[in-house]
């Protein structure tokens, strides 16, 4: 571990001295990641139809199987059946468990957001009571924040908790609850006496708790999503997590980590889409040639791999920072809170960039499949439907955009950051934007775009510098896209003319060959 922490948001204070990349995982960690990948390819991917039809008992069985391999509590404490390993490793494992969206959500929630609140904020007794069944995969967890009339505006929740003798009595409806069908315990946000936002652990068998019918979703059909209704549902007083009125710390810190992890969840399906597009473009012949011989198809493959590279670079750089913060501050509840908050800006940047990269990658993959991509006989349509929600949950991308620039400006005002210093064209624009008087959401959103694009460019550049020619080629292919998005954002801030900087020429044929050689995104071992 390093002596000094690289502070949150300091990516706009010049180039950092070090930056973790996925290649830096130790050989032990890579072995664990391999296990997840092998498991997902052999146990999940051959069964997508059955999964999408929610075949009775299948998903809980798959989760239990993953649990037997130690995959369900990677970053939860060892004392409660977890492995006590880092969040970055947990995220990389999650990426490879996420080649299919439905599995991704089911596994992601039970191994992630349903445990992190308990791990960070639970008392020893609560952890001992509720964590082991989740870390072992015997039980499945769920996280219940949203309500019919309270989505993005989460604190407007109307579910209530009232103390009656030695019980909390809960009333209200929670909407969109992933894993509802097979969850054994729910982390439920409710307001004590209708005012104090708090977190509660509600076991499935609680009298007064009912699970409504499955939502009829566009995608992620194999994941369960349903309302839960609480009618005078009684739980023991000990099931209040952390403190009365402090549920927002539980909910939002779980969400910070959740956003970071959602980034991994969104590039998992993107990885599979690139693999599929690589194979299809080689096999499909038109005009007497493989599609992969056509320049415009090569450009797509290259662009997909480049976006993937950037997202990967941001995510695992961020995860390593989070781990460092937990090493430094973690252990106590206040320390855990501080660690989970430190990189909230980076977490939001990863969430927005990765989910939008996922959508672009899958759209291009579908385009490469031509008419066949538009049918359910081929695997891309499922990815296309599944991926759409990534930009909506764990904080919509709009909410994350509002948060990003606002949070950054607050950090600047607090004076906790070193002087800002641009190390790229985009960073320069971002810093200028941060010093502007931003007028309304559209400008805040534009400033956020510049911030997150600066983080993306820097993460990709630092990784490419470590990797030699192939990494550099991927970075160079991403830069024109990042510049264009930055220019678009800039034009929402000022009417000054803007000249795009000179870029390296991109050899898309070489990039497409790299994608074919790797049968997917380029891997650096």
């Amino acid at each position, binding site marked *: 571990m390093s002596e000094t922490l690289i502070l949150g948001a300091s990516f706009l204070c010049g180039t950092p001295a070090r930056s973790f990349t996925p290649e830096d995982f130790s050989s032990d960690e890579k*072995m664990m990641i391999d*296990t997840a990948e092998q*498991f997902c390819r052999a146990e999940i991917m051959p069964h997508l139809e059955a999964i999408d039809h929610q075949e009775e008992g299948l998903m809980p069985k798959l989760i239990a199987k993953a649990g037997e391999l130690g995959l369900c509590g990677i970053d939860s404490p060892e004392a409660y059946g977890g492995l006590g390993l880092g969040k970055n490793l947990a995220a990389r494992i999650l990426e490879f468990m996420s080649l299919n969206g439905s599995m991704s959500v089911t596994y992601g929630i039970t191994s992630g957001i349903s445990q992190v609140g308990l791990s960070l904020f639970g008392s020893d007794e609560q952890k001992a009571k509720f964590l082991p069944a989740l870390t072992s995969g015997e039980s499945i967890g769920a996280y219940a924040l949203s309500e019919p009339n309270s989505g993005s505006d989460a604190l407007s929740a109307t579910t209530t908790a009232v103390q009656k003798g030695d019980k909390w009595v809960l009333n209200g409806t929670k909407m969109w609850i992933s894993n509802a069908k097979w969850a054994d315990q729910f982390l439920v946000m409710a307001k004590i006496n209708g005012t104090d936002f708090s977190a509660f652990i509600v076991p499935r068998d609680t009298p007064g708790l009912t699970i409504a019918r499955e939502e009829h979703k566009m995608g992620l059909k194999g994941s369960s999503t349903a309302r839960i209704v609480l009618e005078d549902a009684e739980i023991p007083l000990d099931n209040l997590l952390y403190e009365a009125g402090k549920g927002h710390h539980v909910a939002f810190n779980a969400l910070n980590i959740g956003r970071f992890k959602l980034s991994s969840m969104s590039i998992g399906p993107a990885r599979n889409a690139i693999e599929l597009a690589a194979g299809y473009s080689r096999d499909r012949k038109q005009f007497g040639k493989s599609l992969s011989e056509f320049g415009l198809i090569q450009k797509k493959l290259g662009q997909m791999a480049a976006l993937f590279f950037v997202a990967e670079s941001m995510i695992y750089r961020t995860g390593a920072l989070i781990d460092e913060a937990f090493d430094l501050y973690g252990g106590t509840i206040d320390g855990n809170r501080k660690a989970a908050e430190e990189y909230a800006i980076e977490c939001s940047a990863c969430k927005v960039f990765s989910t939008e990269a996922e959508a672009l990658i899958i759209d291009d993959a579908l385009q490469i499949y031509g008419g066949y991509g538009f049918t359910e006989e081929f695997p891309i349509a499922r990815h296309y439907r599944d991926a759409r929600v990534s930009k909506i949950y764990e904080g919509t991308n709009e909410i994350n955009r509002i948060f990003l620039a606002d949070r950054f400006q607050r950090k600047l005002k607090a004076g906790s950051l070193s002087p800002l210093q641009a190390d790229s064209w985009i960073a320069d624009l971002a810093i200028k934007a941060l010093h502007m008087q931003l007028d309304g959401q559209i400008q805040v959103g534009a400033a956020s775009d510049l911030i997150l694009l600066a983080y993306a460019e820097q993460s990709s550049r630092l990784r490419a510098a470590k990797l030699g020619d192939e990494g550099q080629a991927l970075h160079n292919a991403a830069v024109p896209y990042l510049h264009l998005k930055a220019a678009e954002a800039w034009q929402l801030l000022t009417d000054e003319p803007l000249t795009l900087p000179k870029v390296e020429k991109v050899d898309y044929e070489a990039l497409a060959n790299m994608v074919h050689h790797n049968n997917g995104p380029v891997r650096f071992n």
Partner: protein
Amino acid sequence: MIRLTDRQSLDATWQPGKLVDTFMKVLVPIKRVVDPYAKVRPLADGSGVDTTGAKFEINPFDEIAVEEAVRQKEKGAVTEIVVVSIGTSASEEQLRKALAIGADRAILVETDAVLDSPGVAALLKEVIDAERPQVVLMGKQATDDDNNQAGQMLAAKLGWGQATFAAKVELGANVTVTRETDTGEQTLSLAYPCLITTDLRLNEPRYVALPGIIKARSKPLEKRAPSTVPAAKTRTVNVELPAARPAGRKVGSVEELAAAIKERGAL
């Protein structure tokens, strides 16, 4: 389980009273090979294969041998599994994986020499002379060189009985090995000590569980230098890609297919 014999009481690691009356040590040699599913290119000068950036794995047949040893241990038929690799420190990665699957300790015979099969057999014999296992369980071949020799040469050097291409292994009073041959199943009975080489159908290796990987960190991995490095008796002259296959052609009917086969003189 077998009774202790004189041979086992000679074993350096065995201590009276430690294991009451049974002791069964299995030694599994493993090789670090390029991921058999990765596409590799020959080096420009044809001297070998370009492994820059490649991923390395335990040779799949060796992984089957490790898996078999671990299953036998889980059944109670084996008391200790020692895995051995010959190579540079890079091979520690594969040894750690074998430990994570369930081997008890590992030995790395450290050398960067290019060895042929007789050389591998000679260096393994050195380890076996010191370790005195009852059974050596190893892959029938490595997916990089595809030689299918080291096991047989090693058995000959040791003067042990051998059963190659094992599809089923039972360790009892004797060793019973079933082999799948072109004409059916053949069952062999061998006396201890003996050497077994594994075929693909012996078992399906498990996923490496994460707690096992953590446990493996604290299992012993000992490095030894070979007493001498045997000079290679064979050397690779050239490595090249197979000639590209001519493009296929789609046929519309069985008749057309038959005609096409006849045309090529294949029927």
